[in-house]
């Protein structure tokens, strides 16, 4: 505050800006608008050395205010954005793109489409080259909207069935949308990036028209090209595609393997484990065990009955066969210090029993094998279960008692 008394244009506008920001943070839109009116004359001064220019500030702030202010309308917003478009040629396409997003968020799909088309036809010397990325995005989003139209028309056709002449024009339009969409979507996904939505839509188009090879290639590229950022969804899409087309277990497993590496807590890990358990190959079954243990390391899975039942099933099978106990030992080694408190506390035993009997059943089985018949969890649940005369608990109790020596071998 030592320079509080030195007031010049720059400082005055900086102060103004901070008032705007404070007002916006406190959602005082009227006050923000008020200060913005005083800030606008910054446009008349040259700020070429600043990091963010006043015109960009005004665009961003104005957009926020108009989005939230109770008295502002779409019409006002549009007129504001049109002005912003003329303000900075270097930002023109960006503004167009964000304008389109805003229209989409407000359900004005046709207007958004028009805007994107208009922006697509913009040419401005070397700026067109410099803003190439934005242009590609604009084309991609227009392609997306074309896909959306295509999708609508497809649904119309499906509803009416394949007969009827009146559907011919719809069909033609549908195909034209497809062509327009495909061209643009294909372009954008060539560029390394995260394009989940575009990829999904493009693949959907390709599948519909029967071009499975292209679809597979696109998905492979998206998942395996190292230039693209690591993206779990890419593998999910690929897996889903392969599954849809009845590909071999081998290719399905290889698709999910990478997903397990990137996101061990992914919901598809159950499917993965199920596939692996059934495999004839020992290595795969071992991987299955690894996968399910890894998934249950995550808090989000604590109460997932399916997951616990997968683990229980596999462990039961191993225990009965008496083969590969070392697998369990290995997995348990790194977990024996914290899983008991994490999953098998007395509190959880009570909670699980009260809330979800099946959950407590599966977990009790696992606990019984890993921690022995005398562990808190197993004792409580089995006791409760037997008391309630639920048959499977009696069987469980017998089973664990019978195989208690296994526990000793695991823990030792």
């Amino acid at each position: 505050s030592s320079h509080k008394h030195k007031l010049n244009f720059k400082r005055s506008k900086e102060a103004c800006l901070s008032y705007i920001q404070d007002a916006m943070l406190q959602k005082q839109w009227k006050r923000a608008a008020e200060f913005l009116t005083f800030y606008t004359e910054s446009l008349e001064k040259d700020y070429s050395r600043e990091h963010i220019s006043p015109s960009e500030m005004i665009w961003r702030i104005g957009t926020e205010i108009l989005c939230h202010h109770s008295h502002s309308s779409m019409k006002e917003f549009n007129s504001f954005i049109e002005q912003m478009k003329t303000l900075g040629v270097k930002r023109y396409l960006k503004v167009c793109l964000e304008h389109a997003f805003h229209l989409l968020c407000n359900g004005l799909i046709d207007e958004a489409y028009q805007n994107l088309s208009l922006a697509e036809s913009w040419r401005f010397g070397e700026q067109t080259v410099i803003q190439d990325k934005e242009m590609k995005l604009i084309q991609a989003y227009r392609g997306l909207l074309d896909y959306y139209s295509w999708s609508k028309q497809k649904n119309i056709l499906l509803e009416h069935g394949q007969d009827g002449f009146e559907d011919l024009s719809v069909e033609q339009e549908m195909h034209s949308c497809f062509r327009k969409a495909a061209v643009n979507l294909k372009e954008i996904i060539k560029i390394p990036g995260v394009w989940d939505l575009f990829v999904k839509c493009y693949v959907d188009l390709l599948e519909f028209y029967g071009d499975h090879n292209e679809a597979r290639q696109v998905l492979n590229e998206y998942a395996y090209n190292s230039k693209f950022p690591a993206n779990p969804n890419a593998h999910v899409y690929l897996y889903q595609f392969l599954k849809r087309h009845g590909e071999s277990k081998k290719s399905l497993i290889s698709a999910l393997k990478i997903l397990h590496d990137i996101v061990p807590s992914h919901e598809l890990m159950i499917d993965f484990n199920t596939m692996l358990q059934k495999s004839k190959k020992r290595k795969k079954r071992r991987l299955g065990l690894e996968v399910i243990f890894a998934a249950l390391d995550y808090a989000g899975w604590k109460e997932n009955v399916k997951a616990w039942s997968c683990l229980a099933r596999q462990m039961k099978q191993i225990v009965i066969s008496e083969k590969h106990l070392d697998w369990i030992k290995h997995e348990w080694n790194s977990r024996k210090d914290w899983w008991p408190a994490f999953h098998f506390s007395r509190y959880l035993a009570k909670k699980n029993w009260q809330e979800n009997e099946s959950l407590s059943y599966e977990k009790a089985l696992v606990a019984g094998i890993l921690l022995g018949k005398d562990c808190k969890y197993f004792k409580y649940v089995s006791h409760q279960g037997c008391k309630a005369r639920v048959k499977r608990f009696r069987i469980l109790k017998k089973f664990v008692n019978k195989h208690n020596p296994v526990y000793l071998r695991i823990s030792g």
Partner: protein
Amino acid sequence: DFNERCAQCSEVNWGLTDGGRFYCRSCHNVTERTREVVNTDFASNTRVQTISKGSRKQEKHDEGCEWYVCEGFQLVLKKQAEALEALGVCSQMKDEILCNFWRHYLQKSKQAYCNRPAGETVEALSVCDSSTDVDSEPERPSLLRLLSVSESEGDLQTDCSFASSTTKMSESTSVCSGSVDGSLYLMKNQKEKLRMTMPMTLSFCYMALLWLREPITLSDLLRFVVEGHIPYLNVFQHFPEKMKLCGLDLKIFCVESWPAYEEVFNKMLELAAFLDLPRFPDITDSCFLHPDMLCMKYLMEANLPDELHNWTCRVVKKTCIGEVDFLTLVPGNKSTRKVKYDVLAVALIVVVLKLLFLLDDHYEWLLSDFAEERNKNNKEGGPYFEFKKWYKVIKCSLDVEQKKLDEERAKYLWRCEKPLFYSAKKKSKVLKRRQMVVSLQNQFGKLSGSVRPAEKPNPSSFQLSWSEENTDGSCFHGHSLKGILQEKCGLLTAVNPDYWLCTVKLCTEKLCGHLAHYREVDFPQSYHFILRLFSFLLKIQPSYIHDEVCAIEQKLFHKKLCKKPKYNTGLRK
């Protein structure tokens, strides 16, 4: 004046065109006769043309005319003087004092320009000669006598060479500025000649006000400027249409900052010395600027008891800062420290408060509690002054006002309707931008909800006012200091026996620019609060007031300081 009959209609009804030519008001016949001598009023175009100047180009383009930078400044000064007159300053300010200061300046500075025709110098001289009779005030020395000294100096160029030099200039500078000598103005090293700037116009104003001993302090003046009562920002809007501003003129006439107190003050001193002005009219104890008077004003504004005024007067007497020789400005005398009347007055009040309340974040609250106790039993007479109560009231008001001020500053609008552009090429872009700004202001203005207050506050000498009529007890003017005073040997002295010095030794102002170095953390919070209050009123940094406080203390405790060379945190009075 011109008394010939009109060639066309035979009337004698002459007026003057902007170009200085006579025209007949009845039939609008324009003659070739021009006025030789400019009249004593400011006119928008004081360029004097002699009759034989036929060769000079009147207009470069169809709209503009040739104008020199100093003409622009002359206009600015005229506007400012008019505004001051509207505020109540006597009319002598504009027509005599400021006008003469300006002419003297022109003469002193323009003589050194090598391409500048001395023609203007001649005019200035001839003008002043004709008005020497007007000046008859005995107190003020005749400035004009000084001007006449240079009559014999300077060589007069012939008209032809003058005309050719203008054409030469206008060809080369027409691209860079609307004024004829804009680029020249900025290019030359003007250090010795004291080049005119916008802040300097305020120095001129202040100098004239000081000469007339008007009741406006420099901080008042600067505040009026910021509040818009005195043209400064965008004053070029008032230039006539024909005076086109562009290019480098913008650098000269467009300001984007408010001038600081120090800047204007120091420039004023420089200017006074440059003009070789003699000793200014005496500041005696009946003048508004005398500390005895000014302290009264600030005591009122700070909502402090009137009784404190006795104390400020006592300190003034003891330190001799009320002496006419101390207070009166003698330009050029480098040895004396120049007095900032407003800063001196508030610093005095600070010293008095320290004397009476100590302000060590402890004693003043003790005293206040004591006064509060006594107030409970005090049924007759006015209440005793309680520092705590005063602090609460002032802090509250100060915070509110400061907040308002900060918001106002953030809302300041610097641009005006008149477009400014560096070159004709940029004109359309500038105009488009202006349109957009206005459009955006309208759009978001509608969303602002509240009504635009927009009206500038009426100019007032006081920023804070307190009324004794308020029953809430928030006015302390009439409160008594009895609670903190005692009688000793017939004299009223403070109950507080101690005093702490802001600094033991003063710095050399010439070396580091300050007498002391103020850091908030080094001093008691009460002290800082007081400084903050006056800093708000004067719109200057607290450190300037602190400097002045140090200076007064050094004078007040001079004897004690000379005796005890050791470092003293406290001092028995």
